[in-house]
């Protein structure tokens, strides 16, 4: 699976999403649960805004000195016996990982949840090389069992499915015989996956934050699968996006505190695990060999641009959980493994505008995302910036819209033109005005509005005309209707 998911143009995907009541019910109730849990956790922390500012400051500093910190990280990993591979592209990363797996004669790979390995399509590369790859995060596992259904949320990947659908998938694929109760479904997965953990040759994980000062990688999880992936197989490979790094454990504290509250409304998740090296002498669990793969895959081209702040992202999904557009269209509509506001900003940067030019417009710029972001990424500003690039640099805006906006620029360049336009509006719109002074079937671009809403007919007397006549009528000093 690469970044791009799904088929068909944006409008079709949205249509499909809007017509999927099961998904929409699951998403809206999940959003509510997420929001409630986050609100409680924030309240308990007190000065949330101060924490956010500190989080932003740490992320900005780290990005500004990313070369230094990645260098320090790699020194500390190798010093403690781990191997580091810097991968400029997805292909480089996949080939290195495949070679490591083959050199260990690895047949079975267990994975804990990792968006970056989705991004580089690691599973399909390893499967082509003859490996069995098993996703062990419950949500990812459900999707994998369901013929590789793509994720629709970066924290809860199977959010679009309800428990009945999951039960049916388990029945069909895993000889499941029990009910749709989440506890029973989870227990079935536990029993099946325990065997896989114990017999796997290779464990692959993502990385929430690497710690430069010690070469540690940290995993923030709830299910315990990442701990199993990193303690049972003899070889561990960790794949990280190059920006997922903090200077020291002291900054890790801040970012983990923000992440767990924002992502799942917990003070800490069940497991925050810091792994610092392969097992030492006399240690029986933990990997004998450790590889860290650090991935660029388009990220560096964002550095030094107006979009740099998107790399502050700690993948908590808080923006997704409050987005009113995501709420209705669901994750798959975005056509990217990174959905919601963060996805609408990030995807065109990593993959180009061609396939994703609608994403920056799939927002009302309501700024709920920016307000929710624990590291203060100005997401709605970045969506706006994308629109500017699409219009002014890429020239990808529709011609009809360009004409309207040119006319807007022209019309608003002088008040005379604006006044003429607005004065004749009632006359121009007259044929469309219904009995209750509203328009229910509008022409041109108005049609999309009037398909679902009435549009007001222009007032016969504009407000400015009222002001003018009021001034003339002596109600008001005429000078106050000034030019």
């Amino acid at each position, binding site marked *: 699976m690469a970044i791009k998911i799904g088929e068909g143009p944006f409008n079709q995907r949205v249509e499909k999403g809007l017509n999927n009541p099961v998904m929409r019910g699951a998403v809206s109730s999940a959003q509510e649960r997420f929001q409630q849990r986050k609100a409680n956790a924030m309240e308990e922390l007190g000065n949330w805004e101060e924490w956010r500012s500190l989080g932003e400051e740490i992320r900005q500093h780290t990005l500004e000195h990313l*070369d230094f910190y990645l260098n320090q990280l790699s020194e500390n990993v190798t*010093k403690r016996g781990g191997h580091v591979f810097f991968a*400029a592209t997805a292909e480089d990363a996949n080939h290195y990982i495949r070679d490591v797996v083959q050199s260990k004669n690895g047949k079975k790979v267990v994975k804990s949840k990792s968006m970056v390995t989705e991004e580089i399509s690691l599973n399909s590369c390893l499967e082509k090389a003859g490996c069995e790859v098993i996703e062990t995060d419950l949500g990812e596992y459900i999707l994998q069992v369901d013929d590789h259904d793509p994720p629709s949320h970066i924290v809860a990947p199977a*959010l679009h499915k309800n428990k009945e659908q999951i039960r049916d998938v388990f029945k069909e694929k895993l000889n499941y015989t029990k009910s749709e109760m989440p506890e029973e479904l989870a*227990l079935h997965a536990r029993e099946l996956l325990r065997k896989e953990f114990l017999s796997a040759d290779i464990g692959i994980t993502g990385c929430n934050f690497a710690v430069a000062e010690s070469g540690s990688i940290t995993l923030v999880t709830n299910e315990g699968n990442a*701990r199993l992936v990193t303690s049972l197989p003899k070889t561990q490979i960790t794949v990280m996006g190059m920006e997922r790094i903090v200077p020291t454990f002291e900054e890790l504290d801040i970012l983990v505190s923000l992440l767990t509250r924002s992502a799942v409304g*917990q003070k800490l998740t069940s497991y925050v695990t810091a792994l610092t090296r392969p097992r030492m002498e006399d240690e029986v*669990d933990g990997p004998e060999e450790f590889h860290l793969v650090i991935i660029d895959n388009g990220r560096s081209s964002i550095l030094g641009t107006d979009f740099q702040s998107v790399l502050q992202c700690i993948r908590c999904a808080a923006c997704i959980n409050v987005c009113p557009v995501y709420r209705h269209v669901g994750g798959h509509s975005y056509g990217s493994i990174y959905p919601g506001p963060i996805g609408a900003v990030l995807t065109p940067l990593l993959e180009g505008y061609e396939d994703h030019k609608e994403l920056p417009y799939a927002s009302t710029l309501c700024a709920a995302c920016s307000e929710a972001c624990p590291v203060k990424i100005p997401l709605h500003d970045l969506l706006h910036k994308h629109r500017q690039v699409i219009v002014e640099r890429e020239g990808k805006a529709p011609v009809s819209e360009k004409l309207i906006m040119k006319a807007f620029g022209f019309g608003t360049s002088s008040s005379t033109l604006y006044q003429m336009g607005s004065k004749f509006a009632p006359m121009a719109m007259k044929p469309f005005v219904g009995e209750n002074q509203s328009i229910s079937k509008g022409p041109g671009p108005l049609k999309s509005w009037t398909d679902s809403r009435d549009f007001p007919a222009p007032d016969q007397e504009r407000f400015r005309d009222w002001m003018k006549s009021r001034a003339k009528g002596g109600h008001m000093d005429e000078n106050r209707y000034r030019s």
Partner: protein
Amino acid sequence: MKIGTVHNRDSFLENISSRLGRDTIETTVAQPQWSSSPQNRVLENATKEELITVLEKQCQVIHTDFVRVKQENKLLETLNQVIESYGGGPIITWDDPRFEQHGLSSLFERNDTSMWNPSIDDKNITLAEQANIGITFSDITLAESGTVVLFSGAKKATTVSLLPTNYIALIPVTSIVPRMTQATTIIHNKIQDGTVLSSCINFITGPSNSADIEMKLIVGVHGPIKTAYILF
């Protein structure tokens, strides 16, 4: 220890440097001074008793049984009660002198208790996997989040707190600190002092759980299904 290999570093980092407007990879960065430190104010002036109250309350949130032993000579009795309530052995524990120090040696007189033993290698994993209960001490305990911090070692294996169906953490009152901040400061200082860091440091907050199905909380997924903290 063997030093690991590193590939493609220079070209990768030079590209980043140039994107950030530098000719070469930065060789030093002054330790940043952050403009605020709200983390230090959380439970800043709380007394030990107040921290214990916070911890106990948080245990309800994280679905963890909390038992406080007020007289140390009752620790064994309490531990045995919790073990029984979780259905008894098999049990696996760390090889940790604290068991003896706190009068828990009789735990190892049970024929269904095994202590992690590096000399039997992978058999430990099998024992842990088959164990009904794993027992460890907490090295640092975070009141705010209800977290036990475990530093791994040859005799303090990480899987003891992970593979068994149930997990019991023994928490010395002296190990309690307000929050993660104090633990990460300890770790940071160890690194600065050049102390060898554990291969694995676990911050464990209650039993494993998942909300991947309809955002409904399921307690007990891949890790322990039940967890108890015994404070003494």
